[in-house]
């Protein structure tokens, strides 16, 4: 059984003027435990709506979202689902509840009624996992964006989730901050946590095992980075190819030949070397 399953999911909401907007139309896919999936699309493609459907913050207008056999429609399982599928949001400032870092990390376990001794251990482990142990008693307001997001990840880890959804968690960060967060995401995935990264940055999507591309609420592509970047659809979806892929294309126009689609710099360098010596 897949860990995450979406079956014909549609979602509509009403705007301030009473108009109904269909944010998602008939989306189906499933994710196995331990996968690293990027959900890509331009602003307004429905990717953030989809993220909020995965942990029951939104409930589909039609279709079903099933997490580990639990349907998000089942209100009695809401908190089990949210504990299992943690979420890191976009704005570092708007997801921190407490002023002191360790207090914020403890927020989830406190809500779940985790006993105190175990909670302290969990907070400890979570802060270690994101490399923020030495800051634990400090105030969050003096941290960099990347550090704040790492604290947010620790807050999710302290609930001991099996899935972590990154809802555009890097889009407000500088390049260093982005790298920090992607690094942590990768490490967590190596430890067996399923990662769903919502992004419009193709460099980040290229790190995933699989990319699902949304356009105007519909799923248009679903495959490995190589497959997705090879598709002519990518740019029609308002996405840019990773710089390495873009360069390989420019070089192809200038007489170079590459085997398949280039997705990262190492591959590109290898490809160039093989035909220049």
């Amino acid at each position, binding site marked *: 059984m897949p860990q995450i399953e979406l079956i014909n999911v549609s979602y509509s909401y009403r705007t301030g003027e009473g108009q109904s907007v269909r944010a998602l139309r008939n989306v189906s896919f499933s994710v196995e435990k331990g996968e690293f999936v990027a959900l890509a699309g331009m602003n307004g493609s429905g990717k953030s709506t989809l993220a909020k459907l995965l942990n029951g913050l939104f409930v589909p207008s039609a279709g079903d979202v099933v997490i580990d056999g639990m349907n998000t429609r089942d209100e009695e399982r809401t908190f089990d689902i*949210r504990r299992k599928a*943690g979420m890191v*949001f976009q*704005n570092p400032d*708007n997801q921190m509840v407490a002023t002191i870092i360790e207090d914020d990390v403890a927020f989830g376990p406190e809500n779940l009624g985790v006993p105190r001794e175990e909670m302290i251990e969990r907070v400890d482990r979570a802060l270690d996992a994101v490399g923020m142990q030495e800051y634990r008693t400090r105030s969050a307001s003096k941290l960099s964006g990347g550090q704040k997001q790492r604290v947010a990840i620790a807050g999710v880890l302290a609930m001991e989730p099996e899935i972590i959804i990154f809802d555009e968690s890097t889009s407000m960060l500088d390049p260093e901050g982005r790298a920090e967060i992607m690094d942590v995401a990768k490490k967590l995935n190596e430890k067996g946590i399923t990662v769903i990264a919502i992004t419009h940055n193709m460099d980040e999507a290229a790190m995933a095992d699989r990319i699902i591309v949304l356009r105007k609420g519909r799923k248009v592509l679903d495959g490995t980075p190589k497959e997705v970047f090879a598709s002519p659809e990518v740019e029609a979806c308002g996405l840019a190819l990773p710089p390495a892929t873009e360069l390989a294309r420019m070089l192809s126009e200038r007489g170079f030949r590459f085997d398949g689609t280039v997705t990262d710099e190492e591959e590109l360098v290898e490809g160039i070397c093989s035909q220049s010596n």
Partner: protein
Amino acid sequence: MFKDIAFGQYYPSGSVVHRMDPRAKLLLTILFVVAIFFVNTYFGFMLTAAVLLLIILIAKLPMLSVLKSVRAVLFIVLFAAVINLFMIKDGEILWSWKALQITDQGVHTTIKMALRLVLLISGASLLTLTTTPVEVADGTESLIKPLKYLKVPVHDIAMIMSIALRFIPTLFEETNKIISAQKARGASFDTGGLVARAKALLPVLIPLFVNSFRRADELAFAMDARCYNATENRTKMKVMKIGVADIVGSLFIAAYFVAVLLDRYYFNGAMDSLIFGGLV
């Protein structure tokens, strides 16, 4: 524009006063404030100042941080002093001009009132200088816990308090950013009459409100995602414990209270005459 709202901002020095139980500090601050209202002799004020100085020393606070808090209310103190000085008609007249007169009683009452206000503010600022806002919120929650049985949502109140405190620096920063952005478009906030000035604030207040609603929305999602309200049996990581410093502190403030009461009701001003002789 908002630089001066630094009243009693937490000053970390890691002293024993900082490490005291916030509940003890809250209660002792209340006790201290009540005591000040019983003080009515110069000796009593000297005693109060000595107590404050001692706490400042133990808490390793710079004098300046306390004086800053006083400066924030200086205007009110001066205003009240002037009113007092001219309103009190009892006692010997020292100076008069037309309807205005100053009496010796007036002078004494004015000095005492100013001293009382300054010491009161200094005392209260010691609490916020040595206790983080979160500790104040936690302490308050713990102290009002019995109200739970009267169906008061104690935990929600505490949550609102701590979130409000958590967002104060964020909102200040945001306000300053918006002010800069509007100034860059030629807005001015310090010219024109009262109405013009109030109107000039709209370009700051509207975005601030819009952004705050957005923030509140996002924060609500984030709290839901982290299982807020999942169980009635919420646990807490931080437990507050009464320690030796709290007991010593309590005894110290209690002794001070007794001294104030003795000075007022038993010695009845005798200490003042002893120290200041004929001056008072």
